[in-house]
């Protein structure tokens, strides 16, 4: 090979080497990118941190409205400078519980807002057996914190309330007696064409408020705020509770919510303990569709629903996502957003936001019994997991016949 050829091949080889080097250098250096390095990890800060929140139906409209506002305001995760984008997935609390337990959440949400801490307790119970630890924390920065509250209240059609109140104040014992009356409304001071007394509560297998109603029954039956496993397993109590629940108009396993009470009116439910927030939201519709208005009556033993904002602590979501979820949680707890909760019939948890006000459904429906301050009631203490599980088992065996 002569010299010219050597020079030729050397130049071609050099050119190729330069091309390869250019490719390598271009790929390694952050030309034109907005990446940052944290603890050796390169983070693309031009991309938002995506947070997914599964929210219970009763708070979902309010939380969704807040998320839309939050996303529009482009909140930043301070550690990385990334914007946070929140997606809300509405899911009934018990459906979410079931999907968590069957490990069918896809994707696993960053946070969950169930109806009640009852549900996180039940999921934790499942994972405790499986993993030996909780998946939703009860303390620390990722602990569940209520974002709004509501309670179980009696919703009763006015005509039925007037008939029942002839026998005394509305409570579970009165409802028990109405449910057991073999002659129906004709013998209860109402009209024969109303048929039998029909109890309106949710299936505890489908909606947490149904489980809450059963806890409330136990509280009133035993006249105490904390019920034990022995209490709910007692034959006498279970017989009494079965009597009451035999008057549910749908034993087939339907969720039965206030929306159903509004939609089907007194044809399917005369009275029942349901979420106050749902009763308030549906009050106007009930008055339009049904000749009879609905009245709210507060029970002696109150079961609260606290809608805890609960961060999933599993490895499926990053620390940035978890921390971004906390930023959104703070936003939900901010005064303006808490104020908006009133328009959805929810009670703010922020002590600086009064329950009464121009947007408040509590103010609007005072005439139907809504009260900003709950009178003369006692709050039921959240029962432990076994109590809840025994109540569900009772329902399956004695009521739903599963």
């Amino acid at each position, binding site marked *: 090979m002569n010299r010219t050829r050597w020079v030729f091949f050397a130049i071609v080889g050099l050119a190729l080497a330069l091309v390869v080097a250019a490719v390598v250098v271009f790929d390694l250096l952050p030309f034109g990118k907005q990446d940052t390095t944290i603890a050796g990890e390169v983070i693309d800060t031009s991309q938002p941190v995506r947070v997914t929140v599964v929210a219970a*139906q009763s708070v979902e409209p309010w939380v969704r409205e807040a998320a839309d506002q939050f996303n529009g305001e482009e909140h930043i995760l301070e550690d990385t400078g990334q914007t946070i984008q929140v997606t809300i997935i509405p899911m009934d609390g018990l459906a979410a519980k*079931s999907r968590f337990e069957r490990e069918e959440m896809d994707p696993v949400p960053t946070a969950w807002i169930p109806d009640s801490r009852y549900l996180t307790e039940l999921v934790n119970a499942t994972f405790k057996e499986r993993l030996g630890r909780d998946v939703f924390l009860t303390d620390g920065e990722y602990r569940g914190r209520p974002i709004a509250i509501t309670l179980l209240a009696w919703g009763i059609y006015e005509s039925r309330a007037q008939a029942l109140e002839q026998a005394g104040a509305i409570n579970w014992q009165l409802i028990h007696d109405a449910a057991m009356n073999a002659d129906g409304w004709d013998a209860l001071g109402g009209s024969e064409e109303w048929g*039998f007394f029909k109890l309106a509560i949710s299936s505890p*297998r489908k909606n947490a408020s149904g489980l809450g109603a059963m806890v409330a029954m136990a509280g009133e039956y035993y006249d105490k705020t904390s019920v034990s496993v022995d209490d709910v397993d007692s034959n006498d109590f279970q017989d009494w509770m079965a009597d009451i629940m035999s008057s549910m108009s749908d034993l087939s396993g339907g969720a039965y919510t206030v929306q159903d009470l509004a939609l089907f009116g007194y*044809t399917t439910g005369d009275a029942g303990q349901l979420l106050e927030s749902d009763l308030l939201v549906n009050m106007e519709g009930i008055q339009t569709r049904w000749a009879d208005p609905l009245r709210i009556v507060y029970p002696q033993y109150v079961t609260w629903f606290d809608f805890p904002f609960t961060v999933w602590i599993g490895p499926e979501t990053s620390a940035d996502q978890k921390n971004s979820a906390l930023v959104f949680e703070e936003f939900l707890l901010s005064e303006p957003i808490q104020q908006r909760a009133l328009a959805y019939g929810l009670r703010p948890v922020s002590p600086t936001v009064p329950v009464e006000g121009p947007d408040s459904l509590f103010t609007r429906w005072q005439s139907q019994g809504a009260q900003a301050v709950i009178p003369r009631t006692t709050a039921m203490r959240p029962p432990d997991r076994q109590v809840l599980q025994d109540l569900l088992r009772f329902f399956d065996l004695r009521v739903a016949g599963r």
Partner: protein
Amino acid sequence: MAKSQKHAGRTPGQSAAIVGALIALLVVVVTGGCLCWALLRGITGAAGVLEDAGLKDSEFEGIVLRVAYSPEKEILFTHLVDGFNQMGRESADGRSMRVQSVRMDPDEMLRAASTGEFQAISPDSSVWLHQLDQQYAEEVADPAAFLVGQTRHYAISPVVIAMWEDAALELGWPETAIGWNSLVNHAIADPDFRWSHPSTASASGLLATLAEFYAAAGVTRGLTPEDLQQPETIARLQEMEATVSYYGEGEWAIAQQVNERGRDYVDAFVAQEQLVVWLNEQGHDLVAIYPVEGSLWEDHPLALLELPSLTSEQRLAFEEFAAFLESPEAQRQVMSHGYRPVDLSLDLAMENSPLTAENGVDPDQPRTTLQLPGAQVIDQVRNVWWVIKRKTNVYLVVDTSGSMDGEKLRNVKEALQVFVNQIEGAEERVGLIEFWGDVEILVPLDRLGDNRPELQAAIGGLEAGGDTALLDGVTVAYKQLRRLNDPDRINAIVVMTDGQENASHISITDLTSKLRRENQSGARVVIFAIAYGEDADYDMLQQLADSTGGQARAGTVETIRGLYKILSTYF
């Protein structure tokens, strides 16, 4: 030699020029290489986009939500789905959403729900959702598991007894409240009173049956499995069901028959209130009777199936679709179709509302409902119904003339097997007659418990050839049933032909006169006629069916199987 001469002759100036040229080449190669790389990188990047775009094209539907719906609301549901799809909804990342609707009986939905064939269902009633959950819990051996997730409503309608106004007036309506008990008592007292409810495969049929069970057990709540086994309850139920003229594939099919045939078809039938509105808007004169013991609702739930394969995008599409169904525009459409909207701000008595007394309905009704029992009791109701339902004597009369040769006969054989297999009860009686230029009773009428294998074998052995003695075939079957004179059962002939009558000894005029005349007394025989293919004499079959209060249907090689399956629901 020439090459070496050139080298030998190179001067230093020429060498420098060559080196310069090579350096220039290096620059060109490097620059070109970089450009090519950049271009390739760009193309690759672009190809990624194109690939994505290609994915969108190949999946074009983007996010597809398949929803199975029950047939009675086909007009409304497909209308709403079209409205949603036309809006071109997109997800946050720009993927288009589309709903695909699949018409399906609730029974079939239950069978297919866990396969992932669809992500949501909209049956006629929530009662199926609870059945589905029970079934799923058994499938996964977890009593707490359920498949039915978020459930929304968009239209509701109470189950009523749809009755011709003159028939209702005869029962004392509106002064006298009518209920399930009074309806059945009237039917028992007057054998000419014809009423019908669908089989328990549809909500109205199931709910009507449930109402009968309550009436028979003498309760309006707390129905237990033990109640369903009491001999006196069973006896009363059999007495009630014996008054049913025939069953059928669903309330929509019955309503269509009423619309076509008018007052002669039936005196009363069980259906959702919306169909009373629809029929009256077609010019008929029916009223909705809200049973005094209590009614039940067809609540048309839209339910998401919490399958492991459900994607978050499909969940989002469900949300969007449900929100659309609840929108003011969709809700007005719901109401214009005669349903009660779920938007409670819409007053049922507003101007242009079809829910009026003129259309035979009362928006203030019903006053109360019957209790919907647990899934186990409902399951048992369906099982017991198969035992106590009005039994059938049915002759299958089959054309095996020469024109049936080939694919036609093959498909009919399959269809007949489906029919025989579809009828569950062992006590039902079925026989088989074939006709060509002649008529032969291949399998005499007998209990299916005894002759099912014989029927299956005879169907398998059918061969084509000869002329078409259609009317003789019907006559033979009719005489067999008349001779039996069994008024406690539904007596029916299901006759199929693909051609023109050309070999019978009796005329259509004589035969229809005879049918009309003789059906006035004794065991009434109903003819269901199938015109198979384009050459069949549909008019003649229609005359046969009309003379007995039956039905004529057209079928093709593709649909004959489904048609026989549908007809099996009438027995």
